[in-house]
């Protein structure tokens, strides 16, 4: 509610966009299309110093500088319906066939109706009639849609969506119908077939948008009305304004401050431990078989290791979840520290590859221990296959373990069906000590 979490994919039920977008009940066009909402976000920074349980002595360190680097829009943003309707393989199915010559334009704003098959499957669009109100439309006004055969052949640009509505206005459960404005000149007088679509497209053809056009916007065209050109030209982005850091401050008694200053100037110094994370990224070159990756962790007071297998391709793809771990036919895993196997046998992961995915209990136990040791009480184990990661707790009950001096590596075995190139993010949770002595600050 306060940090912008929006789990519901239903169009029209997003905190980021206003407007109910219920095309089953009305025509949605530029005038009543969703507009971006301004959200007021207040979120903690999950950091050992800024979110720890100790007061930080900014007076001792002569202040604190916070440097945030924002991530690329393709990593931080997702389409509400994921990859549905994005690129040809994920297209939705055409209900009403299109013939050669269809869509001739008598005026600059003439449109062609494209009717999509109705249903709850991923390649169809509907508004669920019961009280769930699930609107599965992945398109919006300003999208440029294409059509092709199922095998990708005979691709043809249809046009820019100017509105969408139900095929049976006033009657529930109509087909999703979009009125597209073709990027073509007004028809000749008399009209010729070349003024309309060049190819025929049968029922069941794939209708889709191109990701790059959505992300970057389309250049304007003289054949498209100016307002629609504007809608099509908008690239995807986000803006953060009025950024403020709300800080509470504590003013200790003068005697306390004096004692602290004295200690800082002494040889013994002022020491403060805080929990932090060191990230090691490993590009996995092999996709199948037993993979082995070295984690160059040198922490002397480590809590846990959290290893997230990310898809390389998804890192720059807004249609995919860039931050969620992928399973990709993994079979088992095992950490190795020096010559010690952790656990003593590989932990099975095969069940995650079932349809639908099932959890592997031993993996879940290890992961829960690892997260708890980092200070994250585990509240939700549902949807593990969609938030997949591997974890290991090296200690318990507030104690620490020493990783320094021996190699730490992770072995993950993938079956021959694995296809995704992966990059592993390994987060080592450990204690770091800041010491202020003789007026200088060091951290290790």
């Amino acid at each position, binding site marked *: *509610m306060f940090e912008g*979490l929006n*789990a519901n994919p239903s169009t029209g039920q997003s905190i980021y966009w206003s407007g109910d977008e219920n095309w089953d009940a009305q025509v949605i066009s530029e005038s009543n299309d969703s507009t971006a909402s*301004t959200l*007021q976000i207040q979120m903690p920074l999950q950091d050992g110093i800024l979110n720890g349980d100790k007061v930080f002595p900014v007076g001792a360190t002569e202040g604190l500088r916070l440097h945030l680097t924002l991530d690329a829009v393709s990593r931080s943003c997702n389409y509400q319906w994921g990859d549905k309707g994005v690129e040809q393989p994920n297209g939705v199915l055409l209900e009403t066939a299109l013939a050669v010559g269809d869509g001739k334009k008598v005026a600059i704003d003439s449109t062609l109706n494209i009717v999509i098959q109705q249903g709850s499957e991923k390649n169809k669009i509907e508004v669920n009639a019961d*009280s769930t*109100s699930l609107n599965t439309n992945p398109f919006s006004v300003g999208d440029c849609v294409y059509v092709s055969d199922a095998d990708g052949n005979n691709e043809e640009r249809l046009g820019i969506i100017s509105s969408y509505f139900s095929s049976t206005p006033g009657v529930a459960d109509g087909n999703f119908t979009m009125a597209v404005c073709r990027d073509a000149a007004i028809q000749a007088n008399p009209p010729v077939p070349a003024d309309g679509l060049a190819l025929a497209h049968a029922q069941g053809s794939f209708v889709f948008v191109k990701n790059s056009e959505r992300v970057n916007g389309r250049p304007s065209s003289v054949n498209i009305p100016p307002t629609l050109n504007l809608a099509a030209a908008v690239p995807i982005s986000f803006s953060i304004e009025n950024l403020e850091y709300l800080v509470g401050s*504590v003013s200790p008694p003068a005697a306390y401050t004096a004692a602290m200053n004295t200690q800082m100037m002494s040889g013994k110094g002022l020491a403060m431990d805080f929990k932090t994370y060191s990230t090691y990224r490993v590009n996995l070159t092999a996709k199948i078989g037993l993979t082995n990756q070295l984690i160059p962790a040198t922490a002397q007071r480590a809590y846990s290791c959290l290893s997230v297998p990310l898809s390389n391709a998804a890192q720059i793809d807004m249609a995919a979840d860039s931050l969620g771990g992928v399973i990709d036919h993994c079979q088992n895993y095992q950490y190795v520290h020096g010559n010690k196997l952790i656990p003593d046998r590989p932990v099975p992961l095969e069940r995650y590859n079932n349809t639908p995915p099932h959890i592997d209990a031993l993996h879940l136990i290890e992961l829960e221990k690892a997260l708890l040791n980092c200070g994250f009480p585990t509240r939700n184990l549902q949807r593990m296959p969609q938030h997949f990661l591997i974890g290991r707790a090296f200690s318990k009950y507030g104690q620490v373990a020493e990783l320094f001096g021996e190699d730490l590596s992770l072995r993950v075995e993938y079956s021959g069906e694995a296809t995704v190139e992966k990059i592993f993010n390994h987060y080592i949770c450990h204690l770091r000590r800041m010491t202020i002595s003789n007026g200088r600050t060091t951290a290790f």
Partner: protein
Amino acid sequence: MNINQKEHAEVFPINPPSGAYSFRGGFPIVQFQIANQNKLLDPSSLRLNGTFKMIAPTLPPTRAPLNNTSAAPVADSNTGININNRVGIASTIHQMTISTLSNQTLETVRSYGRYLASVVPVTHSQSDFDMTNQVQNPASASRSFNGAHALNNEVSFCIPLRSGLLSGQNFIPLGTSGVNGLQLQLELAADSAVISGYETYDKADAATQMLFNPPNNGAFYELADLTLSYNLYVPDEEGQNQMAMPSTGSLSYNSISQLYSVINSSDQTKVLNLGTSNTLSVFHNFIPTNQINNYAFDSFSTGQLQNSGGTQIAPANATLNRVTFIRGGLKFPLEYDVEVQDAGEADRPQTMNTINFINSIKPYKFYNHSLMSTYTNQGIIGTIGFNYAKTPRNKNTLPDPKAEIFGVGISFDPLSKVGVDFRRTSYGVRLVSQLQDSNSPNSIFTYVRARNTLTYSPAGIAVTS
């Protein structure tokens, strides 16, 4: 002092009526006494037990079960009789006074129901309302229809009394070296404040109010078989002797006090004399004044400020633009204004205000269970089920939509929990909103949580606030 054993105690009221306790029947006061004894009272174990029944406005009244089963309006005097389901049976308590047997007032909580109307939804989730809270408070429910349905029959209850003193962890010495016994007085709320109807919703979340008909005869409620149960810890012989001898000691506890005011313009600063030396937090909730003690409205609703002309199912919300907290004329503890106009006009969470409000009730870093969501406050379904295919939960399984949990609040001392002195300095809150005209008086219920110290000595008992 060593504890020897635990005793399970239960007392009856000292003023039993001939029938049941009810506001309609002229028996709105319930008094309990806990005797002076050399034992320690565990305040968190204290419970009010009894049975609760609502009587339909038929003439003559009958004790037949109600008929809160319809999702569509019926011309029926047996349907549409309900109480606020977030507060539950505790909404029958208008005022709670805890005093020693020598009539020294320790704590008075006025408008107790409206206090719980904010505190309980902020600290309990939908499942808590439908499960955890419901076992002991059968009127508790996340959806008003479900709460009404549960109250068709007479029900038994066992509810805690959530005053500051009784929510504390410190045991209360009941002996001569202590409070010398306790007296608890409960003043029942008016029937028209407690009872209203329930709502049902269509697919577009448009609400229909189910209210008993005719309202003029007035439905009413009764409480019967009331007892107060609690645990006593019995010290060893040495401890009991100690408790029997007059001596000096003190007991710290949090107390809740309430103030009432009215706001009637778009830019108004309420200045209040809290009179407390260790003020921990303050929060305010709002309701149009004409909706209090009115069968047609839920007197415990916690919506936004409203302009005139709104109804129970279609409130005329007046967006809150800005809040400023003031102490002695200076901004305190926030050195800035809480600006929430843009988010409010976009009908999105007014985060900055809401987080401060939550923090005034429960520290935000421990905030984990709450009924508050984008669905209860903005009507946007944010949650999905646990199917691997992400589908939102069916609306009918969610709490009442747009039954907002709204308030303004601030915590003064979240770190050391000592509190701030407002004995000789006034507290102020400036509310800038979109209240449009002077015909829209909104009542502000202000609740102050402060640290009190009870000092007992051979000379008597003193309470320092």
